[in-house]
């Protein structure tokens, strides 16, 4: 079992898809991950299961990989206490979670926006570029930069889960470049394809952060670090001014109003 623990999760699932299904039962969604280079031991550790669950999970995985091997019953390590299940974020992490809410409101509108673009005669370039501006300025500059420049610095940046987050941010930037290209060329298909891809990517990305990554980082922070991070995040917010988040919140409200009417028509 020891050497399985140190294997990359994708290699394990490729060789034994049953492991993917078992992990899924425990709310550990590694199967659709684009990278899959996390080690099995880290995957399990990061999810902070209670000792009973963790032991049973490891037992089932070992059984699935080595059906012929006599696997001993799960041993429960009660010294490893897991944090209470209710997620309570530290204040700056809480704010990042709240920012996700505004980003998710845009993601929710994307299918309607894409339909609207597809059915209109000429591409509404202004609308596309305004959405791009929200994504680039609010989601990327305002939000992702705090993650990359402040939050991720408090943990091992080489950790696979952090690398996956960086990669997601980059992939997203790539999609948005193509959306802009589509808008310049009036290429509806290019806009549609990349806006939908961005929506799918960010939906999963935000879920991973809210449920797994942020709680994992919070568990490692000392009280002193929580205070320090709070100060740094506030400074970062102050550097862009308090008008910026207000402006983009209004943009989303207006967009919702426009497209909810569109749907009602």
């Amino acid at each position: 079992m020891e050497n399985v623990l140190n294997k990359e999760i994708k290699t394990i699932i490729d060789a034994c898809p049953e492991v993917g299904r078992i992990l899924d039962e425990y709310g550990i969604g590694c199967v659709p991950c684009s990278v899959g280079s996390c080690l099995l031991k880290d995957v399990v550790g990061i999810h902070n299961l209670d000792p009973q669950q963790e032991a049973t999970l490891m037992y089932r995985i070992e059984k699935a990989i080595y059906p012929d091997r006599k696997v001993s019953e799960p041993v429960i390590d009660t010294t490893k206490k897991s944090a209470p299940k209710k997620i309570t974020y530290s204040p700056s992490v809480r704010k990042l979670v709240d920012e996700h809410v505004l980003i998710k409101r845009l993601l929710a509108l994307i299918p309607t926006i894409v339909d609207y673009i597809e059915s209109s005669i000429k591409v509404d370039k202004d609308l596309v570029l305004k959405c791009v501006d929200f994504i680039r300025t609010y989601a990327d500059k305002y939000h992702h930069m705090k993650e990359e420049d402040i939050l991720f610095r408090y943990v091992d940046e080489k950790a696979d889960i952090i690398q996956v987050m960086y990669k997601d941010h980059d992939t997203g930037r790539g999609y948005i470049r193509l959306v802009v290209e589509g808008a310049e060329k009036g290429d509806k298909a290019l806009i549609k394809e990349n806006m939908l891809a961005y929506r799918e990517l960010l939906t999963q990305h935000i879920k991973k952060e809210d449920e797994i990554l942020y709680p994992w980082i919070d568990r490692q922070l000392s009280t002193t670090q929580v205070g320090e991070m709070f100060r740094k995040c506030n400074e970062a917010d102050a550097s862009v001014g308090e008008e910026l988040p207000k402006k983009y919140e209004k943009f989303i409200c207006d967009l919702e109003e426009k497209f909810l009417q569109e749907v009602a028509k």
Partner: protein
Amino acid sequence: MSGCPGSRTIDFSEKTDLEGSETGKRPSQLRQWPIQMHLVSPQAPYFQGKDILLAADCTAFSLGDFHKDYLKGKSIGIACPKLDSDQEVYTEKIRALIDDAKINTLTVMIMQVPCCFGLAQIAKEGAEKASRKIPVKQVVVGLEGNILSEEWI
């Protein structure tokens, strides 16, 4: 069962599930004097920029590892929200700690009895009056010295 839960008599001297070790000497983590909220001054050097623990008097006697797990690395003020007088002074001192001493964080540690939540209230009011904002955490200790909850508020 009647009367105030804060002063109701409970005897758990029969408690047997005593995990942990009694070996080794643990040093005190206290790095200041005084500690009582009426006696401390927010101008004291040991508060400047620090992480502060505002502890209800009873918590330190209830928690076995108070020094090691909670006091270590912090400066402290202690108070009893049930018995102390002139508690508006406490609120003002919390405000001054945040605005003037520019403390990094505030952790309020209280007992689970209802009257003890008054201390958390004092901390919240002090923090609201302050113009600086800092993270405030609430830790609730059970009567038998267990941690019931620990969260940023």
